[in-house]
């Protein structure tokens, strides 16, 4: 504990670095995965391929992908982009499947009826499909957020400082307190992110809460989001 107090400043700056490294992959992963997921949902031929590729991506050991990045991207070796791109890829891999399920879960009746009352395809997507896929998308995003925050620690193995630094450093010094600090810090960031997403969800999807209460939402898709 005294070590923590003595090093608050360093821990804080690592925390900030960690947060900064986490945000981009989460946001980018989400923004990219939704259209891909929609595509896979819409065009069933592409579905198998897209989902398989995502499954494949997810099996590549993260470390290998991070170190391979400079070769693939032509980035500098310590460029945070390496980590960000890697984690974005994982986020996409996780999120695409959920996004597909999310669109799947939107009631076909509602879609039919919105077409019937005169929504064009574009409006229908923005005003009906996307918001209705919202709850499942959000559930998936929360999983992605948590796992990304946790994966950022791997950056420490390749010189990207975040709270993972405390792991490698504490390991070399045989210093459990330092490692534990890193673990707790990581979990805290994940929790804070999760809460933020939860409240964003409440704000953007007020009807989902009502729906939850009446147990009507497409639960099974959300299960998949969570078991993924």
């Amino acid at each position, binding site marked *: 504990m005294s070590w923590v107090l003595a090093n608050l400043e360093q821990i804080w700056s690592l925390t900030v670095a960690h947060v900064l490294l986490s945000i981009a992959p989460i946001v980018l992963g989400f923004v990219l995965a939704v259209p891909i997921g929609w595509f896979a949902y819409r065009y069933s031929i592409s579905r198998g391929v897209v989902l398989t590729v995502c499954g494949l991506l997810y099996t590549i050991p993260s*470390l*290998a992908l991070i170190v391979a990045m400079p070769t693939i991207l032509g980035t500098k070796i310590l460029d945070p982009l390496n980590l960000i791109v890697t984690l974005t890829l994982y986020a996409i891999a996780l999120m695409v499947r959920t996004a597909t399920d999310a669109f799947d879960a939107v009631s076909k009746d509602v879609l039919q009826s919105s077409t019937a009352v005169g929504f064009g395809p574009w409006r229908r997507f923005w005003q009906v499909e996307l918001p209705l896929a919202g709850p499942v998308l959000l559930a998936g995003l929360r999983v992605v957020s*948590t796992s990304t925050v*946790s994966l950022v620690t791997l950056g420490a193995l390749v010189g990207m400082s975040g709270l993972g630094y405390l792991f490698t450093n504490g390991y070399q010094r045989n210093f*459990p307190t330092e490692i534990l600090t890193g673990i707790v810090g990581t979990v805290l960031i994940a929790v804070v992110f999760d809460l933020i997403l939860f409240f964003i969800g409440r704000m953007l999807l007020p009807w989902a809460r009502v729906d939850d209460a009446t147990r009507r939402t497409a639960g099974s898709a959300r299960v998949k989001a969570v078991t993924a």
Partner: protein
Amino acid sequence: MNLFADAFAWIFDPTHWAGPDGIPTRLAEHLAYTAITVVIATVIAVALGLYIGHTGRFRGFAVGVTGALRALPTLGLLVYLAVLFGLGIRFALLPTIIVLVVLAIPPLLAGSYSGVQSVDGRTVDAARSMGMTEWQILWKVEVPLAFPLILGGIRSAVLQVVATATVAAYISLGGLGRYIIDALPVRDYTKVLVGALLVTVLALVLDGILIICQRLTVPAGVRAIRNSPAQRSTPKSAHAASASA
């Protein structure tokens, strides 16, 4: 793509197929870590998941636990346990397995409790009103119907464990991670790629096997439901769902 050519050359070089650092040994080690982990995690998580799913009790707890476990950084936990136990590398297997079990529990737990909860409440109700005991309801109704989802959980768990078991090498165990961790400090990309390729192939093969199991174990009647388009759109009330809520 030259890198890939090199990696394949490396893999197909017969000298890499023998000895303690040979591909068969590493594969076997990797499989062993995976198997031990998945078995332990399955026993813990599925038992817990079935209990929670059947009774509906402690669901909040399960949701919290899965979330929290997911947030635990694997690497951190690994080195923490390695250092904390002070066991040196002789018992490196213990922290490694613990960490991998922690990793495998969330999908398994979520799969099994949401699997049970996704079983139509009316079916369970009917089973009970026919005079099935709770135990019979669990084993004759809920488990068979939840099985595809439980296996789905096992699939995710296996994928994650296979991909992550590479970290075992960080605390000097074997497995395919050895190729990656050894090659990392010297930037031997070919070998890193070899490790990654082997892990990916292993994951795919295992996943393929599990997919086949999943197909085979979907109760025939449930398969019929899936195939009848009329029913496909009816979402089950798998409210376990709000798992993340």
